[in-house]
């Protein structure tokens, strides 16, 4: 009897809590994550960064302008059709004010939907096709007025790497035309910067080889590496995420292909370096944040608070993708704050306008962590600055955690160059 009474009291208390919570009218936010699909190797840390940040906003800053965020995170397994049906389910029930998205295929499939429903969509996809809000750019497929992302587009990052590669070729005193090859799965994400990269490579005097296809999932890619070796490629772009790139790096090391690999933003990280071992040594890739975990910056203290949400002990090492997740979630939060300032309504169009409110925008408290972004109603390329790092692996990575290996200096990230691209109008949208 006693337990029954206690149960009833608890139930009543729960209902009372639920009622009082609903009285605060939380801001619905949807989050589409890949935790089990082909890109889950990098999707997991990124999604953790987003979720931790939004939870931290609720806890440490009492939500956005006093309104708590109600975050609904769904794992869609990197399947575009599931993303679209999930989106429709959200729009009928949760009615999110903004969405944190993920992959290129699903983000591009959802363009017309989010434009129609006026929902700002902050993707983990940096496809250049998402950067033209007006649709006026000559090579843009369609207008994407509600799509945003944090960091340089895939195309711009590749352009920067090619510019670096050209200088590197000359600096090494090589003669003749360097050979460039695009590698990746036949999928919208690796395909996204292919045309832009090959066009610029020709412009810069590279010989462009036929692209090499390898799947998004890890596998045996010895055949691809033999092709690479036989073609005599000098610079190869790795279009896939870290897990599948590791397979290529290892196979190419075995085969003995002497190639300078250029990874994409999702193509390399600290976990991949540990997994690939010395095969990953020398890969050049863009890092979107101003710092990486373990460096010093004014905003690092805030970053550690965010990280403590899912790691109270404070022992976890956060790879570059976690930091990128934090920064893209913070952009959304601050755009919402702008929309809600002075009692304004926090709705889709006003949150979108919130993205235009600042120049060289670094979220408050994350100075030195997030790189500055600038969005305008005509141009959603948040940044044209590309920071290139080199993966450095000096020894055996099989023993010890990533944090220990970094502490010992077995693996590390070495800044290589900071490339400032021109904001060329003819580069918009592709």
């Amino acid at each position: 009897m006693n337990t029954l009474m206690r149960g009833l009291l608890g139930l009543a208390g729960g209902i009372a809590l639920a009622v009082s919570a609903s009285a605060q009218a939380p801001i619905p936010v949807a989050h589409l994550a890949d935790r089990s699909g082909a890109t889950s190797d990098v999707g997991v840390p990124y999604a953790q960064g987003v979720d931790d940040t939004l939870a931290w906003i609720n806890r440490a800053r009492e939500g956005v302008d006093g309104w708590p965020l109600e975050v609904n995170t769904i794992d869609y397994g990197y399947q575009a059709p599931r993303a679209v049906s999930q989106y429709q389910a959200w729009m009928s029930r949760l009615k999110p004010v903004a969405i944190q998205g993920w992959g290129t295929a699903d983000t591009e499939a959802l363009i017309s939907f989010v434009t129609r429903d006026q929902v700002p969509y902050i993707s983990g996809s940096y496809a250049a096709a998402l950067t033209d809000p007006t649709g006026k750019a000559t090579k843009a497929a369609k207008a994407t007025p509600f799509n945003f992302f944090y960091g340089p587009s895939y195309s711009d990052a590749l352009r920067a790497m090619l510019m670096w590669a050209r200088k590197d070729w000359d600096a090494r005193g090589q003669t003749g035309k360097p050979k460039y090859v695009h590698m990746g799965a036949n999928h919208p994400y690796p395909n996204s910067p292919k045309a832009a990269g090959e066009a610029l490579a020709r412009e810069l005097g590279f010989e462009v080889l036929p692209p090499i296809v390898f799947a998004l999932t890890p596998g045996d890619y010895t055949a691809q590496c033999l092709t690479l070796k036989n073609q005599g490629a000098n610079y190869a772009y790795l279009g896939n995420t870290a897990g599948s790139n590791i397979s290529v790096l290892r196979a190419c090391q075995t085969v003995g292909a002497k190639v300078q690999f250029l990874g994409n933003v999702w193509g390399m990280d600290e976990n991949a370096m540990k997994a690939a071992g010395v095969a990953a040594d020398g890969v050049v890739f863009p890092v979107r944040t101003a710092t990486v975990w373990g460096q010093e910056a004014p905003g690092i203290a805030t970053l550690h608070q965010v990280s403590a949400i899912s790691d109270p002990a404070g022992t976890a090492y956060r790879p570059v993708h976690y930091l990128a997740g934090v920064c893209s979630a913070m952009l959304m939060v601050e755009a919402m704050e702008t929309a809600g300032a002075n009692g304004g309504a926090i709705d889709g169009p006003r949150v979108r306008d919130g993205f235009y409110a600042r120049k060289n925008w670094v979220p408050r408290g994350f100075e030195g962590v997030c790189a500055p972004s600038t969005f305008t109603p005509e141009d959603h390329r948040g940044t044209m600055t590309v920071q290139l790092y080199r993966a450095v692996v000096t020894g055996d990575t099989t023993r010890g955690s990533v944090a220990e290996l970094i502490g010992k200096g077995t693996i590390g990230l070495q800044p290589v160059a900071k490339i400032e691209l021109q904001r060329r109008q003819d580069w918009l949208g592709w």
Partner: protein
Amino acid sequence: MSVMTPAGDYRESYHADMCIFPTRNSRWAMLVGLALCCAAPLVLDRYALSLMINIGMLGIAALGLNILVGFTGQISIGHAAFFGFGAFASAGFADLGVPVLLAMPLAALATTAVGLVFGLPAARLKGLYLVIATLAAQFILEDFFARAQWFSGGVAGRVTDAPNLFGVALDTDARYFYVVLLWVVLSFCAVANLVRTRDGRALIAVRDHYLSAEMMGVDLAYYRTLSFGIASFFAGLGGALYAHYLRFVSVEAFTILFSIQFLAMVIIGGLGSVMGSLLGTCFMVLLPEVVQAVADALQGGAIDRALKLGSSIAFLREMTIGAAIILFLVFEPEGLARRWRLIKAYWKLYPYSY
């Protein structure tokens, strides 16, 4: 027309034997059910409607597979590929300027043609060999979708339009529901009647014993291929409905796992039962939703913490589907359709069941 079914077999004509709704009440129940369905968009919210739409379009495809598996005794694990073909074909016809509502049956016909081609091996093969042949169909079509840029938009997929009726865009769940309902009613009526025709009986004869059927004069090759064609027709129709509902079609959706889900639908629903196809689809569509609700309720609760489920709680969904198939195969191999008959009989005879 009797009010009750007699306790015994007193049917004297073929006509009486083939009656689909034997009592007045069953006829009324059907009409009332249909009227309730028509009224559904007025009372249900978008979420419930979207589930019903999903049941409708997947149910049509499952019905097609049931003709193949349940009535003809063949097997196909390439059903999702035909479903996908219908989806892309309908999107293609619509892009060529064909009204969407017309593009749907056209796409179904196109899928029938493809199904007949891939059904040709079925005329000669059975059992495991046929499984492998249809597996090949699955992979050939999937690869075709991924590469044929003009047809499927390649790996990026293609965006489709909502149907339009006299200038009214059927782009909301409430309106699209009627499109799906219409096709569901037409398809299920057609198949319920098909199995009462000479061709339908021939299909069943092929299933029950192919040698006897052949001795009776049933052309095995013809009917096996035909059943592939019919199955593909409904797969294509379901796919076309899917394409214009989701308004985005991508090769990623039509994997072999989806084919297996169709098989699961007809097995759970009941092989060789028209109504079972719909029951099985209901089950397969609603099960993940129920599990999701349970998972949401468990999230953060004592069980979640005790078992350290955390973020993997979402995988309960996938696991439950697998478990459901096994449990059905063990405990109710004749599917929900038989369970439904048993429940009806129980109440009809209550309290004097014999």
